[in-house]
């Protein structure tokens, strides 16, 4: 399914621009004063609910995360604020990266299963057509 590949591409695009020190910001980290690295708000540019909600779900599934939520700042602006707070002293970047990786794995798996299922359906239809002749 092309959209699985799209979701994967978007996530890997995000990660590479994080690493490169990009020309166009895709991601920022904002930390409130007086807290340590376990509560962080990430600002993701050019993203909306498509990535926000699915990423929030994957991060919440991590038992180390105490709080995870996202909002769109304003419908005219295409960016989301994603806040992660972890239990204990785990730096918040870690569940963020883990969530992205897990989301990629999920999409890859869904893509594989979907393609297998389509192929099976087509084979079944072909064999059913043959048997009626």
């Amino acid at each position, binding site marked *: 399914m092309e959209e699985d590949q799209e979701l994967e591409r978007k996530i890997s695009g995000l990660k590479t621009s994080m690493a490169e020190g990009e020309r166009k910001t895709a991601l920022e980290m904002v930390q409130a004063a007086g807290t340590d690295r376990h509560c962080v708000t990430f600002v993701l540019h050019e993203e909306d609910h*498509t990535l926000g909600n699915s990423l929030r779900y994957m991060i*919440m599934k991590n038992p180390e995360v105490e709080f995870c939520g996202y909002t769109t700042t304003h419908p005219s602006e295409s960016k989301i604020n994603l806040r992660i707070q972890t239990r204990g002293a785990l730096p918040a970047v870690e569940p963020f990266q883990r969530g992205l990786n897990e989301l990629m794995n*999920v999409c890859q798996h869904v893509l594989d299963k979907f393609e297998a299922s389509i192929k099976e359906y087509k084979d079944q239809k072909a064999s059913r057509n043959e048997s009626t002749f």
Partner: protein
Amino acid sequence: MAAAQAVQEMRTRVVLGEFGVRNVHTTDFPGNYAGYDDAWDQDRFEKNFRVDVVHLDENSLEFDMVGIDAAIANAFRRILLAEVPTMAVEKVLVYNNTSIVQDEILAHRLGLIPIHADPRLFEYRNQGDEEGTEIDTLQFRLQVRCTRNPHAAKDSSDPNELYVNHKVYTRHMTWVPLGNQADLFPEGAIRPVHDDILIAQLRPGQEIDLLMHCVKGIGKDHAKFSPVATASYRLLPDITLLEPVEGEAAEELSRCFSPGVIEVQEVQGKKVARVANPRLDTFSREVFRNEKLKKVVRLARVRDHYISA
């Protein structure tokens, strides 16, 4: 055991009550329920997840996804609508348009025509690039002139008889290969998807002569680039009868739902209702209008079973 069953219902079913819907949000995150391990486990997901294709033809696809959450299923739906690229007409160079349809209206209509071309074989056009190369552009020509039909009957008033070429269809669009496109794509591979879409109507003496450039784009940019007419999903309905329903009430119950959902069978001389195929139901909640029957039925949806079309 009733408590355990209630918790199970809260985790796996979205219940449709008479006046509202309960248990809408996903709550199975780690720490919410004692005794359940809800942390993300890729192997458990892979074991539980399956995709079943119900129907597939050239224009539509219906399939079930079981074992996935709403957040991700919705992300797929949003991506299908907005971020899967297609080719569509972007620039129209009008050489001659003497028809009633204004240039910009005609260009707008041409942009919405679906083009049969695999977008994966093309690149996006670079910003600021006016000309377009063979790797990111497709060219089509549309040239139609309407004339009077000399062989028409004297007193006929049917425009099909009186005029030649008075309706401009997509089959009048011809593909103009650029560069090495003629080698890459066989004859007839690049065309509008449907060749009977009416573009404009003409009368004798009017002519349309234009050149169209198609580029690759995504639905977020302009809806003409969206590859699907629509993409939607619904949860699998789950109807349980809390008590056995017999006799006349069984007949009434089967009329409250869509046809095929409730089957009335003859068991030992009595008519008994049985839930036969809940998938067909559209959940019109007709049963709640019936005082006696509304206590007997629980309408719910299975939380992780998505029927996408």
